[in-house]
């Protein structure tokens, strides 16, 4: 099968699996993202508090504290060591959570900027904007280093003055000011200047969660990679396409059919978009492949035939 033209993107998956199954994880992510935001906003809007605060620090049901571990690291870097227990417990809880389920799950399932940059990417595809500024994806680690080094030198959480992630989330709950301009800046940057520019190349929070998720248990797997028909649709939708080849095409190099790179955000778009069901969510262990005869899905059988 030839490479799918852009305007045909997703047609095959929709035709074979139905619209909902072809957008299952996308919808689930939007529901989760909006639900988290909604729970935070419920308090101030409806006066009914389940989740209080914002992504920086919060309190769930008045008992479970959560604190962003990167902010916690900045606190230490800034020279504040007398941190109260709830922030310590909160940071450990959040850290442990992402350690297990995948650091960058934060990016694709929780972070509100994801909706902004996904929209930018969708629009970029729709408008056929090709302009690409080449930025190394590793720039984000430089940014992460910078954030921590600046915290050391200024003795404050200086990055929080401009962090678009916390600015957007806090802005929606507590009031924006001109913070929307920063978010708009990220949107336009992703739309016109660099594809997946912010989330995939620059965001230091992404870089941090990337490191947290190095050994995460939940990974996207490609157990039916034999079935891949090189339509390239997963490459088109994947926000971190560099993670795909090793799992998808790495059989000859002895790579297991598991996306092990922690760049992967576990967004599941590849699972959705694949017309032949190559991908699925699973654990990082046991790199066995399904042979096509074992696969039960119709597409597999059809492809085999």
């Amino acid at each position, binding site marked *: 099968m030839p490479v799918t033209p852009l305007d045909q993107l997703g047609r095959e998956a929709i035709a074979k699996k139905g619209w909902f199954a072809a957008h299952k994880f996308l919808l689930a992510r939007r529901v989760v993202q909006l639900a988290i935001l909604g729970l935070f906003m419920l308090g*101030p809007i409806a006066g009914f*508090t389940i989740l*209080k*605060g*914002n992504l*920086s*620090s*919060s*309190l769930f049901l008045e008992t479970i*504290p959560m*604190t*962003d571990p990167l*902010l916690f690291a*900045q*606190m230490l870097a*800034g*020279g*504040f060591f*007398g*941190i*109260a227990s*709830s*922030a310590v417990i909160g940071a450990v809880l959040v850290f442990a959570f992402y350690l297990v389920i995948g650091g960058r799950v934060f990016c694709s399932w929780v972070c509100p900027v994801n909706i902004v940059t996904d929209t930018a990417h969708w629009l970029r595809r729709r408008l056929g904007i090709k302009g690409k500024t080449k930025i*190394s994806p*590793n*720039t984000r680690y*430089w*940014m992460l280093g*910078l954030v921590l080094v*600046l915290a050391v030198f*200024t*003795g*404050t*959480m*200086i*990055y*929080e*003055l*401009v962090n678009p992630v*916390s*600015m957007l989330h*806090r*802005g929606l*709950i*507590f*009031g*924006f*000011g*001109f*913070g929307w*301009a*920063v978010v708009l800046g990220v949107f336009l940057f992703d739309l016109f200047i660099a594809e997946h520019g912010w989330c995939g190349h620059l965001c230091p929070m992404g870089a941090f969660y990337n490191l947290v998720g190095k050994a995460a248990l939940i990974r996207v797997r490609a157990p039916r990679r034999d079935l891949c028909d090189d339509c390239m649709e997963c490459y088109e939708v994947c926000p971190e396409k*560099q993670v795909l*080849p*090793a799992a998808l*095409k*790495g059989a000859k*190099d002895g*790579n297991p059919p598991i996306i*092990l790179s922690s760049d992967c955000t576990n967004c599941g778009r590849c699972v959705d978009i694949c017309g032949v069901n190559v991908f699925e969510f699973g654990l990082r262990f046991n790199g066995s492949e399904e042979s096509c005869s074992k696969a039960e899905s119709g597409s597999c059988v059809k492809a085999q035939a």
Partner: protein
Amino acid sequence: MPKNNGHKKLNRRKFLADTAKTACGVGLFGLALGMYGKAASSLPATAIRPPGALAEDKFLAACTRCGLCVRDCPYQILKLAEFGNDNAATGTPFFTARTGPCEMCEDIPCVPACPTGALDHALVDITKARMGLAVVIDQETCIAFQGLRCEICYNVCPLRKEALKLEYRPNKRSGKHALFIPIVSSDACTGCGLCEKACIMEEAAIKVMPMHLAKGELGRHYRLGWDQKGKQGKSLVTPDTEHKFNLPEGVEYDYYGKGLIDKRQAPLTQPGAQVEKTPFSSNPLDTLNKGFKEVK
């Protein structure tokens, strides 16, 4: 980690150039952020931190800008600074005394709500809070200084008579009334701002200022003699010899206002006292009419 087969071979020149490019870009961003941060981290005088807030530089390292204090304030006076709108560091909590002062809840709910301790959990007595210091900043327009009765700042002060006292001073304009002057004591003032909110003027004459703006500081080498004397129970230096004027018998000097007291005069004015002989009569008319008698 399995080998990544999709990567092109990098040559050293390209690698160094790319690294330098990235480092420069990130470095420039860092420089801009550092400069902006320096400007943005200066707290405007009108933005007051919640009770128990650490010193500003520590606070900015400790506050995650989560807004849990904002949520737990029953009077909803706290606000997270908005980027570009409020001049306090983006996302940090503050209140504005003139529009919404701290009501000084006894259980201080905002403080335990802080997950990090940027609001110091050691603060359990709200009267020990030092959010700022009220200053009677404009004595020219405060109507108390005009001799008008107001005292609203005094009356709303939660620590009336400790943090805010009234001092009576003579009204020199009328010559017979008193001025009721509000005096703030930094020993007790919490900086809650209720006085500033209540001030009846168009622009408040009493304002809560950050401590570092409101307070002077005596040179560290200064010792006030009378304090030291009180502590030691005796003078630390040789006591001054009592000052004496070289005055004639019966004349004294009062240091506290009366000035020269001539006791010699007193008996002279008494009826039947012997009148000192002078060439002049005590009756001024005698002097004025002196020549006329002789002409007659």
